């Protein structure tokens, strides 16, 4: 169901290196062994009619439209299920075949509504095309026979409808749900003529296991499963390839358009990260981009207690620049700074940090990656020499043992989660280290071999214990280590991890994981073939986040699991451009490409390119900015696409800091929480409204393309450029490609990157330079970037956040599939149908002890603050641990999280907070106060002085 000119070859490509030559309709064709006759025909331009086959799915052989004749073979084999053979002679068209195909078409249409002209798939229906192609002219059975025309529609899913009257029972949806998505929500219920598609146990889609990924909708050849947007608006007329702006998988999409209106987003079959798959967010949750809450006119005010005033772009920029200049004049050069966003493009991020460094003249720039993956940068740079994951996503197809630590791919990185599950179904082994029973632990046809259900905050203890087993049981790959790593550091590390206090038996106490399980998991990882580690924020967002990353790197090096397909260390990046924003020099201490600001040579390079003098001292990190604001030394902040007033920990402290500031400039799509503390609001542009690039978790630079005019009139990079010019630092880019050219000129890892190359290759994995002109799927292949891999010691230091009499439970946080982070976008889509509030997950034992019932209001108190949520009793959490998501601002999850942070990078310890939980009857004091404040700010927005009145 795709508006495009791509050929559907019917069956997946064969990867065999052996070639086979055959003859189809007199044409010689040479294809890899294992190719289907159908695909071989397609590759030589011969189209065989088909309905149940599509090249994203394994062949099934059910519709029988694709029958052919093969010399010497009996009967009429289906070309989709018949593999080619050397010397085979195939005939795809003759009278007999035409009769059979017409006969089948006649049967289909005898049980199909005759409303082609008013059908939502009219013009984009494979049944229509196929029946046309075989030349059916008459249905001699009539239409009075037994049929399914009265089958009831199911419109329960907000994004697509299911109209079984149109179903041809090709099972493509069922197979897509199994093979592509791995959810197994669909089955064919009944037998024979009664066969029908059934979500779970004959439930409505919304009540079933369905996760609304849309794979079934995409696979459906008819209008049975159809996007509601197409039903409402008709078929799109053109399409543009772009990249999802939600998570770090970075799925490639075809935005299918009608003029400037997005009709649907269809994951691109050629997308190198996602191979034609998507999740509910990327495919369906784009409605926020045109939501009525979008603010499209710039606004200013002197005080946050004033009503907003709409102004022209020029006025707003002038106002902001003046304020910033005044602040610097009054409080000094370092009194202002900027925050870049992992949601914005590389080019925008680069520009913001350039504005701060060159325009503001200081290094007070930081990024939201501070609060998620800064330990990854630190840990991997120190051990391997590069702040990035080592593999591409496809690497998982070659993994034999997969170790998932503190990540929840099926919710957080759904498309990669599906890839991983596919590999697990093929037989790869799985170790999950997570305090919660995440879906991966047990889902259809996937079962973890080990679930190391550790206590929050004990990752380092666990990782070191794993290392202990590898070293003391002689499972290390000494050959790899001696050839590739710094052996002195290895020797030191060996001695350290081998210490009895690091043994699984000793660490079992600390982690709560039985020693046997740790030993078993370590043996499996070290000896089970290609071992790959995937980790997420459950690793980084800890007081010892960097230590765990280092520990993970040690494990991979010690077992030789680095430098080839199927292995590696893979941080699953949260946001679409976390990798990119880090790469682009967003941290106060680093220029683009992770080069320290104190390095004279690098600084000289940038000084000459940017034609200014640059500071050699690192600037303020985000938490330091807040402290400085409270101290009174930090006064102005330019924040692009980031909601620090919701997403940062110890939020009362953050709000306090923001109130102290004199000029906060927020550039965003919506009046987010931070904007409620702001003085200047600059309308942001959505990913649909601008050009640029995102870099996903596998270092893949993918294009973001403008499919509609920015609602506010400007792309985000233009706004930053205007601000730079207004503060007196000239910028004069005409297109983001020029920004990328500058990045390439100044950064070794990006030297070979250009828009032209991205256009030609689809996407590029950095490093891309003279050494790797086509980019680098697997890093550290021949040698580590830093030369030799370095082992570092990982002493376990317990976090201060320990369960105590006063705070007896440990709170950990995370997110779910349907909502995205602070939720500013997903809350403004129909995704709220799946998750309309954040809840506190609590184990039945704890709930019983505290007298808490499901859906009760519970107060959660930590040393930082208190908030109230409704309870959700769940065995996914272990006793002693509670869990919540943080997608709604009024949930106040970050009122409770503390100022604890990673020792190396200040990444906040979101994942462990000691709390006290009790049943309550009303929202917390903070919630009430914040509600008042928020309501007031909404009023100030509503009462804004509108531009034309003002003029």
């Amino acid at each position: 169901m795709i508006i495009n000119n791509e050929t559907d070859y019917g069956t997946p490509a064969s990867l065999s290196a052996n070639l086979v030559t055959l003859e189809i309709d007199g044409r010689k064709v040479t294809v890899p062994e294992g190719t289907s006759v159908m695909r071989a025909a397609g590759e030589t331009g011969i189209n065989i009619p088909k309905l149940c086959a599509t090249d994203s799915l394994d062949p099934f052989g059910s519709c029988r439209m694709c029958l052919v004749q093969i010399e010497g073979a009996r009967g009429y084999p289906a070309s989709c299920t018949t593999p080619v053979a050397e010397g085979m002679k195939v005939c795809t068209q003759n009278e007999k075949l035409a009769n059979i195909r017409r006969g089948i078409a006649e049967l289909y249409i005898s049980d199909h509504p005759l409303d082609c002209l008013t059908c939502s798939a009219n013009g984009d229906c494979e049944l229509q095309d196929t029946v046309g192609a075989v030349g059916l002219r008459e249905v001699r059975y009539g239409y009075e026979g037994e049929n399914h025309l009265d089958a009831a529609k199911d419109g329960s899913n907000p994004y697509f409808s299911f109209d079984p009257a149109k179903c041809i029972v090709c099972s493509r949806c069922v197979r897509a749900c199994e093979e592509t998505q791995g959810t197994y929500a669909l089955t064919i219920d009944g037998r024979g003529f009664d066969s029908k598609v059934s979500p779970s146990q004959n439930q409505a889609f919304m009540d079933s296991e369905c996760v609304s990924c849309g794979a079934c909708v995409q696979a459906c050849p008819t209008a049975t499963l159809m996007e509601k947007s197409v039903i409402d608006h008709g078929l799109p007329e053109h399409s543009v390839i772009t990249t999802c702006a939600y998570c770090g998988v970075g799925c490639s999409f075809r935005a299918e358009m009608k003029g400037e209106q997005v009709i649907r987003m269809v994951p691109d079959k050629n997308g190198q990260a996602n191979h034609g798959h998507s999740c509910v967010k990327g495919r369906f949750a784009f409605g926020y981009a045109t939501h009525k809450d979008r603010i499209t006119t710039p606004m200013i005010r002197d005080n946050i207690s004033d009503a907003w005033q709409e102004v022209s772009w020029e006025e707003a920029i002038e106002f902001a620049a003046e304020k910033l200049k005044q602040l610097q004049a009054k409080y000094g050069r370092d009194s202002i700074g900027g925050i870049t966003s992992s949601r914005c493009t590389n080019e925008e991020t680069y520009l913001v940090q350039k504005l701060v460094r060159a325009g503001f003249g200081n290094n007070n720039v930081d990024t939201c990656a501070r609060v998620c993956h800064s330990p990854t940068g630190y840990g991997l740079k120190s051990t391997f020499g590069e702040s990035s994951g080592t593999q591409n996503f496809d690497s998982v197809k070659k993994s034999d043992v997969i170790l998932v630590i503190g990540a929840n791919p099926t919710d957080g990185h759904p498309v990669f989660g599906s890839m991983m599950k596919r590999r697990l179904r093929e037989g790869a082994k799985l170790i999950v280290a997570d305090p919660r029973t995440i879906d991966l632990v047990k889902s259809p046809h996937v079962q973890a071999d080990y679930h190391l259900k550790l206590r929050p905050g004990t990752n380092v203890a666990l990782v070191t214990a794993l290392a202990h087993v590898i070293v003391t049981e002689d499972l290390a790959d000494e050959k790899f280590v001696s050839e590739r790593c710094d052996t002195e550091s290895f020797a030191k590390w060996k001695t350290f991890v081998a210490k009895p206090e690091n043994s699984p038996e000793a660490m079992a106490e600390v982690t709560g994981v039985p020693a046997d399980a740790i030993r078993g998991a370590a043996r499996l990882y070290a000896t089970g073939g290609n071992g790959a580690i995937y980790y997420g924020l459950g690793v980084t967002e800890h007081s010892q986040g960097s230590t765990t990353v280092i520990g993970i790197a040690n494990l991979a090096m010690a077992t030789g699991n680095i430098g080839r397909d199927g292995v590696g260390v893979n941080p699953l990046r949260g946001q679409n451009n976390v990798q990119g924003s880090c790469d682009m020099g967003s941290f106060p201490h680093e220029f683009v490409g992770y080069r320290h600001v104190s390095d004279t040579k690098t600084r000289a390079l940038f000084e000459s390119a940017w034609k200014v003098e640059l500071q050699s001292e690192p600037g303020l990190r985000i938490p330091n900015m807040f402290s400085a604001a409270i101290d009174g030394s930090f006064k102005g902040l330019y924040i692009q696409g980031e909601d620090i007033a919701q997403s940062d920990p110890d939020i009362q402290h953050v709000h306090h800091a923001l109130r102290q500031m004199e000029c906060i400039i927020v550039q965003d799509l919506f009046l987010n929480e931070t904007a409620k503390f702001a003085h200047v609001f600059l309308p942001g542009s959505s990913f649909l409204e601008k050009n640029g690039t995102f870099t996903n978790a596998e270092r893949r630079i993918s294009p973001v393309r403008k499919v509609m005019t920015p609602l506010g009139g400007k792309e985000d990079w233009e706004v930053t450029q205007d601000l730079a010019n207004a503060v007196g630092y000239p910028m004069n880019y005409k297109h983001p490609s020029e920004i990328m050219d500058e990045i390439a000129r100044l950064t070794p890892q990006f030297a070979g990157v250009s828009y032209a190359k991205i256009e030609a290759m689809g996407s590029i994995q950095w490093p891309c330079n003279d050494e790797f002109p086509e980019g680098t799927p697997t890093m550290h292949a021949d040698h580590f970037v830093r030369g030799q891999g370095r082992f570092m010691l990982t002493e376990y230091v317990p976090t201060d956040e320990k369960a105590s009499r006063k705070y007896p439970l440990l709170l950990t946080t995370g997110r779910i599939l349907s909502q995205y982070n602070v939720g500013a976008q997903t809350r403004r889509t129909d995704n709220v149908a799946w998750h309309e509030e954040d809840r506190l997950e609590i184990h039945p034992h704890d709930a019983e002890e505290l007298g808490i019932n499901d859906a009760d209001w519970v107060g959660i108190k930590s040393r930082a603050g208190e908030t109230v949520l409704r309870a959700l009793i769940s065995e996914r959490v272990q006793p002693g641990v509670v869990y919540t998501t943080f997608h709604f601002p009024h949930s106040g999850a970050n009122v409770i999280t503390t100022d604890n942070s990673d020792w190396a990078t200040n990444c906040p310890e979101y994942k462990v907070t000691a709390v006290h939980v009790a049943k309550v009857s009303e929202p917390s004091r903070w919630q009430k106060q914040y509600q008042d404040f928020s309501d007031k700010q909404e009023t100030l927005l509503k009462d804004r002085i509108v531009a034309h009145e003002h003029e």
Partner: protein
Amino acid sequence: MTRVFISRDATALSLGAEQVVQTLQQQATARNLPLEIVRNGSRGMFWLEPLVEVETATGRVAYGPVQASDITGLLDAGLLEGSGHPLYQGDIEALPYFKNQKRLTFARVGITDPVSFDDYVQHDGYRGLKNALKLSPQEIVKQVTDSGLRGRGGAAFPTGIKWNTVLNAPSEQKYIVCNADEGDSGTFSDRMIMEGDPFVLIEGMTIAGLAVGATRGYIYLRVEYPHAHAALNEAIASAYRNGYLGDNISGSGKAFHLEVRLGAGAYICGEETSLLESLEGKRGLVRFKPPLPAIVGLFGQPTVVNNVISLASVPIILDKGADYYRDYGMGRSRGTLPLQLAGNIKHPGLFEVAFGMTLRELLYDYGGGCANGRPIRAVQVGGPLGAYLPEAQFDTPLDYEAFTGISAVLGHGGIVVHDDTVDMAEMARYAMEFCVEESCGKCTPCRIGSVRGVEVIERIVQGTQRDQNTRLLRDLCDTMTYGSLCAMGGMTPIPVISALNYFPEDFGIKSDVDAA
């Protein structure tokens, strides 16, 4: 102590064998008569069941059909001495119905105690396996190939060739799967073997395992066969106890493990790929071929799937040699076929005979014509997907190729007889209806075609646009024949078209212009 044989076969039981056993036991105790009742398999002459055989000095003497109410009279008349009585049948093996059979596969059925390991061994059991253990896998396969044995489940594919494919497929784990789903109405040979001589099947599967290098076997058993289930389980346990199953078969160091799995109760689960899906715990949906199950079978591994009779015929081939077996039969149909007579027939039962006998001989000389004495109008050979044959074709020899020649099949050897009151249009409609009921629903020609088939036949019978609809029915049958994924949809047209061609008058058609 006199030994008395009363069958444990399901047919005998349904006719009252259990009551006969109980009554005989009670009365013998009361009369103080020393008596041992052996529960044997059935001799396969159902009109004589429950059959009571008494071991006398001059051999076994049969009485039948015996009801519990006959026991007093029988004992009074001197049953245990083999004396005369109205139910007296004498030596059962001397009756022409039995004498003229060639019982190779069924050699022991009705004679031995089916679950007695010793009885089995005393009656030439496990001699085939003993020979097989002396041979290389290739040599075993060659014996089976040379015997000319073809699959008795329906498709008549040469068993040796199938085994050879599995033998040559490299894999660490291979399987032997016995298709005991016996879904064809009116057939019972699989059941009779499993109830009457389960060891022969176990031995056959063990030899198959040795031949192809499979260490694990499954019997996929029709769920409606509780007695076969019990007999198989008893025999399997006994084979394990006696070291003929397990990790070290008969001290050879070779392993073979065997277990019974109950079927899903659907006709389509007898189709081999659907059966494999079902064995794997999934819905019984037909798989496409290739890959053949011999290469990608159970759990994706090379697998022999054979019918019960195919496998149960292997021990005698290995015992007496390929030539012994192939000397029976005609043309490319070698050995014997256990035919099953059912429907309106005087002598229903099992008749194992070498290929080559004509249908007429079987129906009249042994079957005795219709039970009610009316003329036979049509017989359906080869199960519900087999052709309806008119009198004119009764001289066709029972031979795979001869049947193919008249667009018919021998299939699993089931023969259902109809007298002259049968309505053949109704039979045709029923064939389509059967397909509607049993279709797995995967492929379109069968899923939708069968439903349309019923409708079109109804229209023809009602006289609605008879010519057009007859042509449509023939076109539909073409679509189903050539388009269906498996033989369910692909063969449903056989009974339909044969009924239409040979009995057009029943459809209200004088003589079908398009008749093939």
